[in-house]
Every structure is written in structure tokens, then in C-alpha cells.
């Protein structure tokens, strides 16, 4: 009887979730649809010189041409790998340093001022220096992007660690947990959602910095593609580059959010 009731409730809950997902998908399509309509009508009315702003059709054609000769894939792959590699390096270091800074008060007091200084410093500001240090090859880009991924993630992780509720540690101690067990079974599970948040923030910053890094010196990558297009006054590939960066960054964020939903289903959500 009670089970049946619960089953019924669960079904209704699932149906509601499904409806919400469809609703969200609908709004997604509509809002982008409107964006494209505005784009085309602005051109049609003549508010913008059509030479300076390509039609959707032209951008799609540039996309197809790029896909056919493989140059688009190559650029996307180059950018993607840069972001992924430096994101991985940045997050790994952020987790390690986040723990050190969050766990040891002395380390925190010592490093806090410096952290805040570097956090306030936009990663792009490092590019000229890094080019002198490491040349215009991959290394300088990886350093700048890893740096971009590192700071926001580390700050999220260490602040989460500082803000943990000590009641769970006390509860574990009174059940007989040792220090390592407290770390593995109490601290880590509570940090998982924050580490995922850190990943989201870092990925966003990484993509934002990527283009700046590629604009300056790169043969491959979406940023490089855009610079080439700019040099030859090819508006379609230029706009295509912008759309690609937005779309890939959105897709990556959606992926992280999907992981987040699975990993944090135990949390009480505001919405």
C-alpha cells in the first residue's frame, strides 16, 4: 500500500522532470531561433553593412567547406586539446594546493595575500611575459591556460574546505573514525560537488583565455583560424569561429553539469 503510493509519487516526479526537460529544450530552441532571426533581419533592413557581417547561410557554407577540407576539425582539435591538457594540469594542481591551503592554517595565512593578487590578475596579462620565457610554441599557451584554470579552481576548493561543517567530523570521531578515515569518508565526499563547481569555472575561464592566447601566435586552433580570416577579410569564417567557441564551451559545460547532477544527487537544492 505504502509502496504503491511511493511508486506513484516517484512516477509523477519523473513525469514532471521529463516535462521540465522538454520545456527547457523548447526555450533553448526558441531563444536561439530569435537570435538568428534578429541577425538576419538586421542584415536585411540594412542596419549593418552586409559586407561586414555575413549571413547565416554564408557561415554555414564556411562551416561545410571547413569540414570538407578538414581544416575546421583540425582547428577545433587543436584548441580542444590545448584546453583539455591545461585544464587537467590546472585542476590537478588546484586540488593539491587547495587542500594544502585549506587544511593548514599557516599555509593559508602565508599564501592568502599572494593568492588574491594572482587571482585578480587576468591570465591574458601573462601572455607577453610567457612568450619571452617559452617562445611562441605550445608551452607558453599551456602555461597561460593552466594558470587560468588553476586559480579560480583552487580558491573554490580551499574555501569549500574551510567552510565544511565540523559536526560531521565530530560524528565520525564518536563512531571511531581515524584521521585517514575522516579524510576519505567525510571530507572528500563533501568536497566532490565543490570540485565539480571548480571544474566548471575553470573550463569557462580556460576557453575565454584560449582565444586570446591563440590570437597572438598560433598556426592551429580556432583563434588562429579567426586571425587568418581577419587578415584576409573573410567575415564568414570569423563569425564561424565565434559561434564554435561559444558552442563548444556550452557543450563542455553541459557535460560537466551532467556529471554534477549524478555526483551530487544527495544535496539539497534551492531550486
Amino acid at each position, binding site marked *: 500500500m505504502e509502496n504503491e503510493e*511511493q511508486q506513484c509519487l516517484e512516477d509523477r516526479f519523473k513525469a514532471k522532470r521529463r516535462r521540465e526537460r522538454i520545456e527547457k529544450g523548447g526555450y533553448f530552441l526558441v531563444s536561439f531561433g530569435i537570435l538568428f532571426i534578429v541577425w538576419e533581419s538586421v542584415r536585411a533592413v540594412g542596419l549593418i553593412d552586409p559586407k561586414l557581417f555575413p549571413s547565416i547561410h554564408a557561415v554555414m557554407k564556411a562551416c561545410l567547406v571547413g569540414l570538407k577540407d578538414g581544416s575546421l576539425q583540425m582547428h577545433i582539435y587543436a584548441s580542444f586539446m590545448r584546453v583539455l591538457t591545461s585544464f587537467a594540469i590546472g585542476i590537478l594542481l588546484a586540488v593539491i594546493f587547495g587542500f594544502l591551503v585549506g587544511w593548514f592554517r599557516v599555509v593559508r595565512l602565508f599564501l592568502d595575500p599572494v593568492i588574491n593578487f594572482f587571482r585578480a590578475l587576468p591570465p591574458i596579462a601573462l601572455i607577453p611575459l610567457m612568450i619571452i620565457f617559452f617562445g611562441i610554441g605550445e608551452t607558453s599557451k599551456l602555461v597561460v591556460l593552466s594558470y587560468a584554470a588553476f586559480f579560480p579552481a583552487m580558491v573554490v576548493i580551499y574555501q569549500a574546505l574551510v567552510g565544511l561543517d565540523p559536526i*560531521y567530523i*565530530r560524528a565520525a570521531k564518536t*563512531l571511531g573514525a581515524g584521521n585517514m*578515515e575522516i579524510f576519505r*569518508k*567525510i571530507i572528500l565526499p563533501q568536497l566532490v560537488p565543490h570540485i565539480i563547481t571548480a571544474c566548471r569555472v575553470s573550463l569557462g575561464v580556460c576557453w575565454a583565455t584560449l582565444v586570446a592566447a591563440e590570437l597572438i601566435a598560433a598556426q592551429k586552433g580556432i583563434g588562429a583560424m579567426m586571425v587568418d580570416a581577419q587578415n584576409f577579410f573573410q567575415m564568414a569564417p570569423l563569425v564561424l569561429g565565434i559561434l564554435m567557441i561559444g558552442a563548444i564551451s556550452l557543450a563542455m559545460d553541459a557535460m560537466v553539469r551532467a556529471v554534477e547532477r549524478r555526483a551530487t544527487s544527495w544535496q539539497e537544492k534551492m531550486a
Partner: protein
Amino acid sequence: MQEERREQNGIVINRVGMTYSGIAGNVEALRNVNLKIEPGEFICLVGPSGCGKTTLLNVIAGFLEPTAGDVAIDGRKIQGPGPDRCVVFQQYAVFPWLTVRENVEFGLRLSVNKRSSDETRQIVDRFVDLVGLKDFENAFPKELSGGMKQRVAIARAYAVNPEVLLMDEPFGALDAQTRQFMQESLLQILEKERKTVLFVTHGVEEATFLSTRVVVMAARPGRIREIIPIHLPYPRVAATKTSPEFIAIRASIEKVVREEFQKQRELSCN
């Protein structure tokens, strides 16, 4: 009971004193507290706020080290927190990232209480059942009411087979009806699985209803003012609270608590 023979001598609190030194000078939270708790007793600590009842509980739990005296359990002096003195907190402290079942299992998976997986399963089954959460064993705490969360905490404590349950205002955050229900549930659980309990509360009625002895504490410095045995027979039910004996005992304890409260107010006015 779990197949483990322990020497049962209860808890001996021997001349415990606790002084916090702070910027504003020293605060004597406990002075010369002596109490012997027999196995199977239900002791409630009541008193005005600031009388050191939670401090005393934290000393017994091992979260605080007393500045004078010591506490022994079955003849062993306590050092730090441990599963022989499991605490149930007012804020539930049920791990939100684990299901009900995993919460109850938590203590048994720690190296100090490690058991075979068969035995673990049996113990968890028994205590999830004992607190009446069989239908919710796969639910996460966010899906539970306050009373249910507290029952998870009780089952989790029971699972590691502590010598004594230390309960720090466990029903303080619950509404009046749920609190009454939880008081009765706790007595029923104890009826089935006897444990020594030390219970901190503000409520004289709650203390009278639950305990075998009520310890009234006085503030500044925190010390034991009076120990009142409650000779009401178990099982006690909701109707017990309206019986004339109950009302008389409650009134006499309330009088002592009120006197202490009054003294404290006069002190702080000076």
C-alpha cells in the same frame, strides 16, 4: 546483544573541573563534578543555560579534556572520542551524502569496529528495523523529516554497540508532537535494546519522562546541584505525563531549576 563481553562498571565522573581561559579572563564551566552512572541507567542533565551540561557531555564524549579530575568508563580512563561513547547531536549530523542504510553502516566499516560483511548486514538490518526505517533504508537524509533523521542517528550510534549513548538535546530541534513521539520511541528502543544513556535537555518534562535519575546542574561555576531519582515505572507512555505522581515530580524538579535560574539572573544583574 552483540557477542562481546565487557566488564560493566558504568561511568565514573571523578572531580571533573573545566576552566576555559579566554581574553576576558577565566571561565569556570565545571567545578568538582562527581557522578557515578550505573549500567542501564537513563540520566538526564538539566539546568539553566551556561550550567555546563553540554560541557560535561563533551568531556565524557572525549571532545574536551577536563582541566581537573577524570572520567572512567568500565575502569578505563577516557582519552579522546571513541565508539564506546557514541554521541547523538542536536543538529542530527546524519551524513547527507549517504543513504539511511549507509549511514547506519558507517561505523561498522571503520577499522576499529570492522566486522565481516555478513555480520555487518545483520547488525544494520536489525537497527534500521529497530528505529522503524526499513521502508526508507535507501533514501537520502534530505528526503527525511527531522524526527526520522534523528532515528537514523540513533540507529547509527547503536550499530557500533556503545557502552553509553550521549545525547545532546537530540529532540531540541523538533516540533512538540514529534518530540513527544520521539521520546516514546526512544523508550521503546531502549526497552528492546538496553543501553546506558546520558541525555542533555532544557526540558524538565522531557527529563522526568525519560530518566531513572535527573541531575540538576547549577551555573557559575557549573556544578551538580541536586540528583533526583524518578521512581515512575517503565514502560512510560504519553498518559504517564498526566499522572499525579509525574506532575508532582516534575513540579519539584522545576522548582529547583527555577531557583537556579533566578540565582543566575541575580548574579548577572549585579
